[in-house]
């Protein structure tokens, strides 16, 4: 094993839903990452589709910049659709 890098695993639990991040694992290449993901993360019928991507290809936000990244959204309550009066007959909203 030369590099044995880390891969991130995304599973779609059923058709119509999105792929969600479920964890990571080590693998030499994409094919092995796919087989490992199948064996480690879908052995209890967790999914119908798998994505794997080598961790180094993910660009992550920097925790030290979370102030300017996320704080400005805090006081913008009007961005949430919570100010509408809904008629009583309307269900499932």
């Amino acid at each position, binding site marked *: 094993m030369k590099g044995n890098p880390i891969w991130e695993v995304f599973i779609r639990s059923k058709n119509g839903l999105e792929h969600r991040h479920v964890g990571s694992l*080590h693998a030499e290449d994409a094919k092995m990452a796919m087989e490992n993901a199948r064996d480690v993360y879908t052995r209890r019928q967790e999914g119908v589709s798998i994505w794997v991507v080598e961790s180094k290809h993910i660009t992550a936000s920097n925790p030290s910049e979370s102030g300017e990244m996320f704080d400005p959204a805090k006081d913008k309550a009007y961005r949430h659709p919570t100010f509408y009066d809904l008629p009583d007959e309307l269900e499932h909203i």
Partner: protein
Amino acid sequence: MENKNKSLIDYLLILGDNSLILGHRLSELCGHGPSLETDIALTNISLDLFGQVRSYFQYAAELTGGDSTEDTIAMKRMDREYRHTWLVEQPNKDFAYVIGRQFLFDAFHLPLLEQLVNSKDEMIAAVAAKSIKESRYHLRFSSSWMERLGDGTQESHQRMQSAINDLYPFTYEFFEETETEKLIFEAGIGADLKVIESTYRQTVKDVFAKANLEIPTAPARKTDGKKGIHSEQLGFILAELQFMQRAYPNMTW
């Protein structure tokens, strides 16, 4: 009728015992695999094989009648009554051995199941239909590891080749037709080992070429596992496999 049942039970043991003993060998690696990922992968394969064994043995117990159950068939036979081939009882010497043994079995198991789905015996056909997807994945897993190790570093190549040199001579036993297999094939229930053998040698040729491995030319090991004659390995396997039932007869969970 009685004779036909006897041959059928015998055939179910030949089918089931390969999976039982290989499944046991793989289970020995649970918690000891070379990495978390391969540990789980090998344990998954072990569980797949045990699942198949249960179906074969439940059916064999039903045909046997009396007090026979899947558990008595799995746990309470004497060594000479086990009908697996010598390949599957070979020990987990190193990871190359584990992969080599797995590949050499999977390459046989898949074409076997592909024939058994057309068996005239509905139970066998149903078990084969369920198992075939599992086996297809096992072969994919073991072939890709054969390629990685065979075509990997100098050390992995050397270990893979030496494992194959030791294990390959055991593969001829799969295709030495026993009286039972002949009868059951003629009855339209069993598989045609000649057809499987040509598929087998082709799979081996293809995968070995990709894996940069040489097909060993050593002669076949003369083994009679399917007739109940085993190597010294089986004693150790049964000591562990049967311990609970021997020490505490009829114990349950």
